[in-house]
């Protein structure tokens, strides 16, 4: 079976004026469907960069990235935006919820880019908020929620469109132990019960334990545990 994500010989060089900063060099990585991958490595090693490339918000300098059969490095900007809305669910370290929207409306946001009926949207949003245990907080604004609760809203937002891939950049990085534990349990559930493929960057070895596989990125190279 072909892997869901195939990263082949990818390099990324950032240019700052005349200065070239090579961040990733000839990286290859396969992620099979149903995987829960934890990506670890020192600060500045390029973990975020790799996630950005896989999620299609940045383009590699060379190499190819095929996700579910699509070579995303070949898509133009607007095709890529559409591709992201269908295929990628994002969970950020600082939740990145819209402060002026309620939990319900935040989860609704990615659905605005789909053609689902009003009724379907409502059902999905309510279902996802139930999965993350926030049915009673639908009308709360982010500032009325704890960090852990905000991250759960963000996870609901990430999976409400039923994306191919769930991407998390240090999703527990800003949380206390207990909240982090809840988030990790939730991610494990999404992986096991809902068969979501997850790639998560983390600094926390304990958090990495929740994953099925751990890979280390250091000095532009990947090594498997």
């Amino acid at each position, binding site marked *: 079976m072909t892997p869901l994500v195939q990263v082949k010989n990818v390099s990324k060089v950032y240019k700052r004026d005349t200065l070239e900063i090579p961040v990733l060099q000839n990286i290859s990585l396969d992620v099979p469907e149903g995987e829960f991958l934890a990506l670890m490595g020192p600060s500045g090693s390029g973990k975020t960069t790799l996630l950005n490339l896989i999620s299609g918000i940045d383009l590699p300098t060379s190499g190819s990235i095929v996700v579910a059969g699509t070579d995303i490095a070949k898509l133009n900007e607007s095709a890529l935006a*559409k591709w992201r809305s269908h295929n990628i669910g994002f969970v950020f370290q600082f939740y990145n919820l819209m402060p002026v*929207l309620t939990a319900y409306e935040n989860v609704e946001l990615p659905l605005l*880019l789909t053609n689902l009926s009003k009724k379907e949207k409502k059902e999905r949003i309510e279902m996802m908020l139930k999965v993350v245990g926030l049915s009673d907080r639908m009308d709360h604004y982010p500032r009325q929620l704890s960090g852990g609760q905000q991250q759960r809203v963000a996870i609901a937002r990430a999976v409400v469109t039923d994306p191919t891939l769930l991407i998390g950049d240090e999703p527990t990085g800003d949380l206390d132990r207990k909240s982090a534990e809840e988030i990790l349990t939730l991610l494990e559930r999404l992986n096991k019960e809902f068969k979501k493929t997850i790639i998560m960057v983390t600094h926390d070895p304990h958090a990495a334990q929740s994953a099925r596989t751990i890979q280390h990125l250091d000095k532009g190279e990947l090594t498997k545990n």
Partner: protein
Amino acid sequence: MKIPFSYNIRNLWTRRLTTALTVTGIALVVFVFAAVLMLAQGVEDTMVATGSEDNVIILRKGSSGELLSAVSRDQIGIISTFPEIAVTNEGKTFGTSDVVTIINLRKKQTNDMGNIIVRGVSAGAITLRSQVTIKEGRWFKQGSTEIVIGNKIHDQFENVEIGQQIQIGSKLWTIVGVADAGKTGFASELWADAENIMQEFNRTTTFSSYTFKLKNIGDYETIKTKLETEQRLQDLEVKKEQQFYLEQSQGMAVFIKALGLVITIIFSFGAMIGAMITMYAAVANRTVEIGTLRALGFRRRSILTAFLIEALALSIVGGIIGLILASFMQFVSFSTTNFGTFSELAFGFSLSLDIIGWTLLFSLIMGVFGGFLPAVRASRMNIINALRAS
């Protein structure tokens, strides 16, 4: 438009202080803009209301107003024989030969002198101009040195009570009545008997104008052609009365608009820069949100539209508030010299549907100019950099 409108409205509400300040700036400029148009409209309305649509006025060709016009008694005799002219119950021609001159009176509030039109009218004038009625006292007697003053003159000038006397030419004339001419130019005039006024100024054979009512409005073109081809009337000009008065208002209306609009356009730069600063700040504060929306799959165009809509919402609210403020100006009226007639004219601010339309368009234009560059900046952000701003 994919990003919901409520996202913009709530963001405006979240920063309500800056929103309020920006809206106030726009509202003030819009207020001035609308007030200027309303004032120009007020002059036009007043002058147009002075004329009646089935009245025709005859003046000397090329004279810009009644003051410099001359129509002879003989010519009026010829004109009054035309069958298109309406006839009174008594079988007389429905017309008035007017003689117009100017005197000075002192204003109540400013103590300035103002030029007042003195209109000598024939017996037919009062029935011809049904918009002018007696409010206090009575009409002047023919052949007497009695005068009736317009309601606006009564309101705004000194020593013009019934029983008081005014010097016109060599004689003192007694005020015997106050006319109610509503919001027309006649409200700013003094009326007396034409023959007496003519004697006073030694002009026994020439009037200033001749005004008559048509039997049938549709006859206007017919009588115009007839009068213009009549050999003895070659130095005269035929106009619809309303058209004549509209022309008398144009100099003033155009002056008000030109001066007023230049000033508002200068002010509007201030308001637009205000809106621009507000919107740039909003974009900067919401960099991460913009990056997030883009990551979720919203297009650059959606971001551009969203921020533009936010700026337009600011400007339309400012526009509506400015318009509401300006609408109160309808209760204000004042008196000044109409350049078209060199004489005092009392007029007010008049709001029309056109003005409402232009004003809202003007506020939207301010919104577009103020919001466009910040919206472009928001839409051109790079996703990675925007997300790293957290």
